[in-house]
């Protein structure tokens, strides 16, 4: 298992990548990052918020604008919740993200990429081209990676 990166370091790297973003950290307990992501030059900037706590794990939200839906769609793709625009960026049981990885090099690029595919989802009238796994078709994965502590800590995808 990779060594946990301290939130102090996470904050430092996030600030270095996004000097204009706002970050608040409570010791090693929690970290909140908020900044603008613009996936392509012809995209608007999206206000994105990352909320991480040791107890609740990771959550990433699009704060603004209000995300519109593709023609014929009733919900957003790959979100936990359309109403609060909480994104699903990785497959939790595979530990694609864990506290041994820098958020600035994983979660944030994935969020920008989510926004990129969200725009293409609108442009193609409802095709998700970013790949991934549907909640509704859970894949039975080998459990050896599922360190229980990690799962509890990062139960959000």
């Amino acid at each position, binding site marked *: 298992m990779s060594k946990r990166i301290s939130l102090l370091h996470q904050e430092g790297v996030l600030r*270095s990548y996004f000097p204009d973003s706002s970050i608040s950290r409570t010791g090693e307990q929690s970290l909140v990052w908020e900044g603008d992501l613009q996936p392509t030059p012809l995209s608007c900037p999206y206000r994105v918020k990352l909320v991480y706590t040791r107890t609740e794990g990771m959550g990433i939200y699009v704060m603004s604008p209000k995300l519109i839906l593709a023609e014929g769609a009733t919900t*957003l793709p790959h979100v936990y*919740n359309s109403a609060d625009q909480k*994104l699903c960026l990785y497959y939790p049981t595979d530990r*694609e993200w864990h506290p041994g990885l820098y958020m600035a090099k994983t979660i944030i690029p994935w969020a920008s990429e989510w926004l990129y595919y969200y725009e293409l989802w609108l*442009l193609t009238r409802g095709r998700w*081209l970013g790949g991934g796994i549907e909640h509704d078709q859970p894949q039975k994965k080998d459990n050896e990676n599922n360190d229980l502590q990690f799962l509890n800590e990062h139960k959000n995808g």
Partner: protein
Amino acid sequence: MKMNELQRKQISSVLSELGEGLDITSAEYQKAIDSYQAVGKWLAAEGSTLSPYAPEILPQGSFLLGTMTRPVHDEDDLDIDLVCRFSGVRAGWTQYNLKQEVGTRLKAHGMYAEKLRPEGRRNWTLGYSEGRRFHMDILPAVIGQGFFTLLEKRMSDEDLQIAQDMAIRITDTRHLQYKTGTDVLSWPSSNMFGFAAWFKYRSQVTMLRKALVLNEAIRPVPRMEKNKLPLQRVVQILKRHRDIMFNGDEHKPISIIITTLAAWAYNGEDDVLAALTNVVGKMERYVERKYDAIRQSYLYWIGNPVNPAENFADKWSLCTEKEKNFWKWLNQVKKDVALIAEQPDLFQLREAIEKPFGEDLVQSVFNNIGQQTRELRESGGLFMAGGSGLLGSIGRTQVPNHNYFGRHE
């Protein structure tokens, strides 16, 4: 790079993708090549009266130029233009004899007899309807003695003469001596290979074009190029714009006029948007007005660069609708390109390209863009810039692989 420069680049890459969406697929491409090579073998096979004259089938037209454009409706034929080149003809043969010998030989093959369509003025046409429909127009032609020596020479704008010398002799049922002239030099001439050499020369991505060896322009099997040159993409885009605007109207501007004017106007721009903007702005400069002493009036002249006596716009004076349609098209394409160039976001860009180029094509363009980005990420080639979060093939941090999780609620 500044943001508006990046935006221009992005619009340009969408247009480049639009051009790619107009290409025929590699399977269709291979099918066409296999089919015409098989016909060539049949014409040249032992026992054929044509075999002493070394018939060889070669691509010409848009298939050779790399500017072929899918039809707007998938059920319409792909149109492959070919030359059947002969090294000479039997003493005493007229145009009629050569044309008939080719026809007879095709009819002697069961499958080709079935596919053969009614005789054309200059061509024989074979229609294929299994799977993707396409037809091949085969133009019988005779080359002069010096032809292959000529191919080793170089051409440039300063020396179009060499390309002009590539002209070959064809048959034409409407020619006065179609059934009487036995001197091949009195047959009608056509210079599709010289034109291809000139187009290839003009398509170089630089303002200082290099002289080009003619041989490079006419390959028996042109390479299937995925990354085409900006001029090729521009011509494809202009032709599609024309196809959508005129929707089968027989008086639409013809491809050879669009191709010639675009190639003259192209100035070596290295991206599709810059090339397209320049071309639509400048192409009318190459439509000349010439005084016709016989009619005592001015007429429009779009010269064949490799055959100065030929006017591609010769029909305009006979049918003013053709002339009007050309100007109407040019005005519209100028407006549409200007609109595309100024769009500030992808959604407005989609609106601006859907109307002139068709909804299905544009849908497939964005689909392909998404798939390519995903493949780029999967192969480790996608990066994110710091500060903005912009994605691209360069950036501060590599985007690692991952799986978007989650249901559509």
